[in-house]
């Protein structure tokens, strides 16, 4: 059975195609202004890459904040259930999942059957999310892709006390003017993200093994800061960013 999952996030749109639970391919593209079009485009691009026809896809599930805008999907499901399903597929031993995407961060626990037991999401605030890191990258005139490696070079992370993206940005600017190194500031940013997420994770109750998913999982600095804050080791799959779409395709198999 060939299924597809489409995950429309606030910054990127992801698609994954699975055949009998095996990943055939996945793709990431910017969401942009038109979420509906973004879902269609990323899906069509992926099909083209896989040299497949839309008619060969038996079931499609959409997820993410733009899930209801994917009109060709058979069903829309939340990213919470899909990230749970995706992580369980990648490693059935996983019990806690930390997903940090563009504008939200969430922590969920799953049981031995992959069912979501509990979850918590960030409040109406983008601090501690991908968008937060983007804003910081702009303030530091750095490439976000370099953030992870740069932060690992720091031995004295700066203290970013603010929990608000806008205020944290001014804090970063003041740290720059004080002559703090880019590496230390970035490491401080990662610690502040980790501190925010770890309190949410503790509320839900972290059970090992822990997996991190979402675009921010590509940032090794955040992963390490979270490991330190939570005192656990965190696994990151190569499919971390498309995990929601993979999970959606898994859920599509059950339709």
């Amino acid at each position, binding site marked *: 059975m060939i299924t597809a999952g489409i995950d429309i996030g606030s910054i990127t749109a992801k698609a994954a195609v699975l055949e009998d639970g095996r990943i055939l391919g996945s793709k990431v593209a910017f969401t942009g202004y038109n979420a509906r079009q973004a879902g269609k485009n990323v899906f069509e691009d992926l099909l083209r890459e896989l040299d497949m026809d839309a008619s060969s896809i038996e079931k499609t599930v959409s997820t993410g904040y733009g899930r209801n805008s994917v009109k060709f999907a058979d069903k829309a499901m*939340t990213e*919470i259930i899909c990230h749970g399903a995706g992580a369980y597929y990648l490693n059935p031993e996983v019990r806690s999942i930390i997903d940090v995407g563009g504008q939200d961060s969430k922590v969920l626990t799953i049981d031995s059957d992959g069912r*979501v*037991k509990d979850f918590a999401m960030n409040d*109406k605030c983008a601090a501690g999310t991908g968008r937060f890191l983007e804003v910081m990258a702009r303030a530091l005139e750095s490439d976000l892709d370099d953030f992870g490696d740069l932060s690992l070079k720091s031995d004295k992370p700066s203290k970013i006390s603010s929990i608000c993206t806008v205020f944290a940005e001014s804090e970063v600017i003041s740290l720059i003017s004080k002559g703090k190194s880019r590496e230390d500031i970035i490491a401080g940013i990662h610690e502040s993200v980790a501190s925010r997420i770890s309190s949410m994770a503790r509320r839900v109750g972290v059970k090992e093994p822990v997996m991190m998913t979402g675009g921010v999982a590509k940032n090794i600095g955040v992963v390490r800061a979270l490991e330190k804050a939570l005192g656990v080791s965190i696994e990151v799959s190569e499919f971390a960013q498309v995990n929601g779409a993979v999970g959606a395709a898994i859920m599509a198999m059950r339709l």
Partner: protein
Amino acid sequence: MTDVDKEKDSRKIKSVGKMKEIMTAYYIDAKTAEQTGKKVAWITSGGPVEPLIAMDVIPVYPENYGAMIGASKMGGDLCQKAEELGYSGDLCSYARADIVCSMIDGGPIGGLPKPDMLICCNNICGTVLKWYEIQARYYNVPLFIFDTPFCHTEYADESRRYVRKQIDEYTNFLENACKKKFDHDRIKEVGRLSVEGQELWQEVLDTAMNRPSPMTCFDAFFHLALIVTLRGTQIAVDYYQSLLEEMKQRVADGISAIPNERYRLLWDNLPIWYRVKWMSEKFAAHDACLVADTYTSAWCGQLKYMDGDNFLDSMAEAYTRIYLNIGVDEMIKIVLEVVDKYDVDGFVIHSNRSCKPYSLGQYDIQRAVQKEKGIPSVMIESHMIDERSFSESQSETRIDAFMEMIKQKG
């Protein structure tokens, strides 16, 4: 009428019309009190209203008015005006909106009638003290503060004496404000009616124990108005008697509140007044009926302490031990009982940024419910009347995910 409309119509609670008539008459009475020579007292929602009824004073509830402001989606604008006046956005939105309505002589129904006195009971929160002090200065009217010590676990003897003494001070205050003697025979009758009304309200809420339930908590949020505003009157007793009969009839006829009740949920905290319809439709679309809540039961939860034959004495304890004036451990006991009583499958928690006393401790309550009952729960961060604080897509994702969890559980 389409089939969908007909279907919806068949589920409508018929008493709604009667309720609207009573509330309209009540507000007309209150708004024309000056012409009819009656006195108006503003009182907090958890305040002891019975002595006012016994003295023929019309009680008016700024908090009921707050709900009206929220339901008419005027909360955001009014709260913004309050912020312009210097009131912090972190303050209770009922307080902010009410203070602004007084200043601009506006709001729903053209504002509340001016008070002749204010009765403030701090069993619901501490904000009411400052809120009522501001209003007492603004209207230049006497203020009576009924101070109920917090009951962490029990009602200590010191509290009992302290609160009981205030009842005498309260009746003295009313005698001075109304320039007539307090009628001790009348208060017995009012007390009896108050207890009867509360018993009936409890019975109405209890009809939701039926599967399927004839009502949702969203219905209870609406029908609650009379037990708040007209507690201690025959009007409230008669109304709840007829509402109870309607509910029993719905049960007998198999009329459910939502079309396909598959999941039963418990709601915690105040409603999100400007989103009641949206919420009720959202949950109904998931075949979920919110059969109980911790909010509407607050106006009948203290019946065990009330004694219709010894009303004034028992009232002191009952008003002190309301849900918001007890420790979190006690709240947990109540919530766990409600989970069993109404046989619920999930717990919906409104973390209400406007009402700190109600929202404090919710994580502990959530944990206790998960641990003891093993049912899923969800927390929705919002605000009871300030619609600027509501995020539809975030709330929707949480609700959808929560329902997916419940469905996965099977």
